[in-house]
């Protein structure tokens, strides 16, 4: 990279660019992360005790999680719920992406994409809050269901995981739809036609032709959605109930309510490890490499 820059701008400018980039990477990305790792391995001490005899590296902060049944169950609940959100989002996005890529006329596709994107111009908190209103006990959704006679009394959507699931599928839909759309879009329509022509029904055509082709897109979408879901704070905070707490909320509490940054950092790294583990698993399952996903 340096050589290309040098050829283009000369040595001083090239050095300046590389220097700025290096400083940014080290000072603003790497060092804070390292600092956090360092925090996570040290006990939480009063300022006076730092550097004193009690200071030193320890795994205690990491062990905390495994000794706290509530936190541990929330950790796993976050894992399962995020997997569930990912699958649900995939289920909703696949038909949508297929329709956009292969069935809709260009005009229809453009309109649909616009309608999908417009809500995302609004702040995530507001968007999530609008779901809070929609799903409320005396909210419009219950009103409609009641007036249609589908239910007899209003449902407490926000009293459990339903609200969180709905809110997350909605919030991360686009991160699934776009990779899927890109992948399916690049499939030659004649492949689908050939499969039909050879006698395959539409389920088999999807299973044998479209899905294998879209695999890198599915993997990308799943990884992004999972990471966003697992790391989500606003949705569970707004749409969840005390019984449906997310692991991010516990991390938040350690940092800003417990004031124990060391503990918070350890929890945050455990969540990061979870996400990386999930990513590795998906890549293994789908037999795709990092290069496929970066596309």
């Amino acid at each position, binding site marked *: 990279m340096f050589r290309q820059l040098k050829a283009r701008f000369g040595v001083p400018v090239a050095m300046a660019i590389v220097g700025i980039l290096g400083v940014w990477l080290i000072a603003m990305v790497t060092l804070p992360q390292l600092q956090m790792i360092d925090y996570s391995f040290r006990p939480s001490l009063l300022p006076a005790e730092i550097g004193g005899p009690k200071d030193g590296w320890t795994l205690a902060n990491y062990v905390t999680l495994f000794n706290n049944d509530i936190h541990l169950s929330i950790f796993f609940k976050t894992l399962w719920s995020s997997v569930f959100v990912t699958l649900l989002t995939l289920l909703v996005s696949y038909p949508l992406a297929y329709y956009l890529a292969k069935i809709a006329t260009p005009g229809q596709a453009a309109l649909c994409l616009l309608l999908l994107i417009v809500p995302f111009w609004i702040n995530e908190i507001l968007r999530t809050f609008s779901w809070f209103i929609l799903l409320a006990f005396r909210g419009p959704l219950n009103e409609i269901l009641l007036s249609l006679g589908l239910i007899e009394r209003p449902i407490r959507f926000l009293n459990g995981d339903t609200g969180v699931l709905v809110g997350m599928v909605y919030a991360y839909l686009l991160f699934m739809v776009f990779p899927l759309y890109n992948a399916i879009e690049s499939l*030659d329509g*004649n*492949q689908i*036609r*050939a*499969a*039909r*022509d*050879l*006698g*395959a*029904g539409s389920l*088999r055509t999807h299973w*044998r*032709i479209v899905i*294998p*082709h879209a695999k890198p897109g599915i993997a990308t979408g799943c990884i992004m959605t999972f990471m966003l879901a697992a790391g989500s704070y606003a949705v569970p905070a707004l749409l969840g109930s005390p019984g449906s707490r997310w692991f991010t909320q516990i991390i938040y509490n350690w940092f800003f309510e417990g004031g124990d940054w060391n503990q918070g950092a350890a929890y945050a790294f455990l969540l990061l490890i979870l996400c990386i583990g999930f990513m590795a698993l998906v890549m293994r399952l789908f037999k795709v490499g990092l290069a496929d996903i970066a596309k």
Partner: protein
Amino acid sequence: MDGSVILDNVVMRFDDFTAIEPTSLEIRSGEFFSFLGPSGCGKTTLLNIISGFLSPTDGDVRIGNASMRGVPVNHRPTAMIFQNLALFPLMSVYQNIEFGLEVRGVDRATRRRKADELLELVALGGSGGKPVSALSGGQKQRVAIARALAVEPRVLLLDEPLSALDLKLRQHMRNELKAIQRKTGITFIYITHDQGEALAMSDRVAVMSAGRIQQVADPETLYHRPQTGFVATFVGENNRLAGRVIECRDGRATLDIPGLGRLSGRSGSELSPGRPAALFVRPESLSLSDAVGSAAASMLEAHIETVSFEGAWRMLEARLIATRETVRILVGQGAGDVLQPGQTARFGYDPDNAIVLADDGAPTHDAEMGETPRASSQPAQENRHVPSA
């Protein structure tokens, strides 16, 4: 196994554009049948109607005498070979060929046996385990044929399958396709815009223009007895001289052609005196005047503009002195040697080798082609069809 295909008054409209005018046609079981026509004339549309990818606006398709109305693509006794082949790139050759059998619930061992047989048939034995991407163009072509044959279709539909191949391979695959068709006895419906291909392989050819079938006949008949000006100019090369009918008698018609006077030829369609008509003479039917007797009526004087070498033949392009129209003349080597651009020469033809067709105002091929390349601009040896008869 009845592989006949009947089109019964099939019409296809897209919004207010009529892609297929009302068409009725019977394709016999076991026949190699081609649709030949220029780009955009509706060939693919017709094939899609037969395979079920499109349902006609009106009319019916019958395969083996069963109506196909409401029968979806995956339940029709047809198989299609796509222009781009559409092999499944993530599957091996075996998996490609076995796909249709797998769909039909055929067990593994039988599938594999069948695939091996088909690979033998298309001369690809032993390549079953290869990924599709490892094959050459011609080999892919064969896999596509094997994949389509695996489902034992009664009718095989081929949409310009050879157009992506180079010249040599194309000629080779023509023979091979014809041989496979004979061996299997399946009805082949082949579409192409290449008249050489259609004439060389087909039992019968339907020549299409602008959504309408112009003529259905065997290749010899199409070449020697075209029924419309379009067929005369699209199938093989032809020189067209337009005029008015003067008389019409004993299968012979005489035209008055402005600037050239009276010229005659066999009458090829309904003609009546006074009506516009055109005389068609093939380049190989024109010759230097001393080679023909001296029937003054069949004489044309022209200014030679180009002489192009084509092996045993020379193709002359010459401008008629009387009308400034360009004609093409194919001459043997002896005569060709003495002719040079810039010379003026007299050409004649035997009226038995020329045909007169009514000029009903329908476009001829040359007038219609616009920017698409003329058939004759392709390599001559490949394209010109000069039946030895």
